[in-house]
């Protein structure tokens, strides 16, 4: 399964065991996407949230 990066148009490989909410990174430009939904013919990606000040371990 593959999707196109919205930023650089590179092909992004989507793992077979992908889950909704998972973060997928474009290996070409580093843009991060979140899997919004999974459909029979692929996934819908949305831009991942940018780190907030209180994010961490």
């Amino acid at each position, binding site marked *: 399964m593959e999707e196109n990066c919205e930023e650089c148009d590179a092909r992004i490989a989507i793992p077979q065991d992908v889950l909704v909410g998972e973060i997928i990174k474009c290996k070409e430009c580093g843009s991060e996407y979140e899997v919004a939904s999974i459909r029979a013919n692929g996934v819908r990606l949305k831009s991942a949230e940018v780190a*907030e*000040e209180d*994010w*961490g*371990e």
Partner: protein
Amino acid sequence: MKLSITFDRLRWEEKALKEEADKMGLEAELVDTRQLALNITRKKLRNGFGDLVLQRCISHYRSFFLTKILENYGVPVINSVDVSEVCGNKLLTSMLLTKAGVPTPKTYVALSADCAIPAAASVGYPLVLKPFVGSWGRNVSIASDEQALATIVELRESMQNPIEHMYYIQEYVKRPPRDIRVVIAGQDIIAAIYRHAPRNDWRTNVARGATASSFKPDEELAEVVQKAAKAVGGGVLGVDAMESENGYLIHEVNNTVEFKGAQSVTKARIARRILKYVVSSVRG
């Protein structure tokens, strides 16, 4: 027994925990907390979180609020809200470590910009400034002298958030270009790694490109890490230590420990050991 694994960013760790829970035959569900709106004026909680929640949110405040709500309704959460509060705030962590006799770097808290420079003089240069809340080494800076500190203070004073106008000032500990991360559940030390700082950074966070190598903790380290875990209230934790000239120092305890880096260099089944602890904590 039903386990909810709550998250707000589905990282490798949350996926690994869910996969391992499935393998162990546990009924486990990943819950995206960004989708939750909870009626907190009802006597009973309507949303089904099961028998136990493993809290894995990366937003400190979201994690803290949700855990507070869940505990209010009697749902057990790991880690507890008290642990979340302590580990999410470096001021509280330093105080509790000190109280428990755990060696930790010398730290001052200056409650205004006016006090920051005199406090820094007591700590000595170079020194480290850290945000009270936050992780991954973000906005952690070294001030090599008073001039450098004054520049950082000036920048912080221009920020809107009042928490930026107070200062957590810590001694710069002479150490090898690495620190130690120990993954611990209760008193069970699951994995220990060195985190080697990348060439272009003094910080040793894996999130900043540090590389990991595993090692077996000696007795002194094991003891101090277990003591630190106990001091903050226990649970599933990532305890960070430095090798100073005077022995180990604990500088941070993480409430939502990331273990992808550790797992890549150790054979220990980290997710499984965490889940075993989580389940046993409910079953007793």
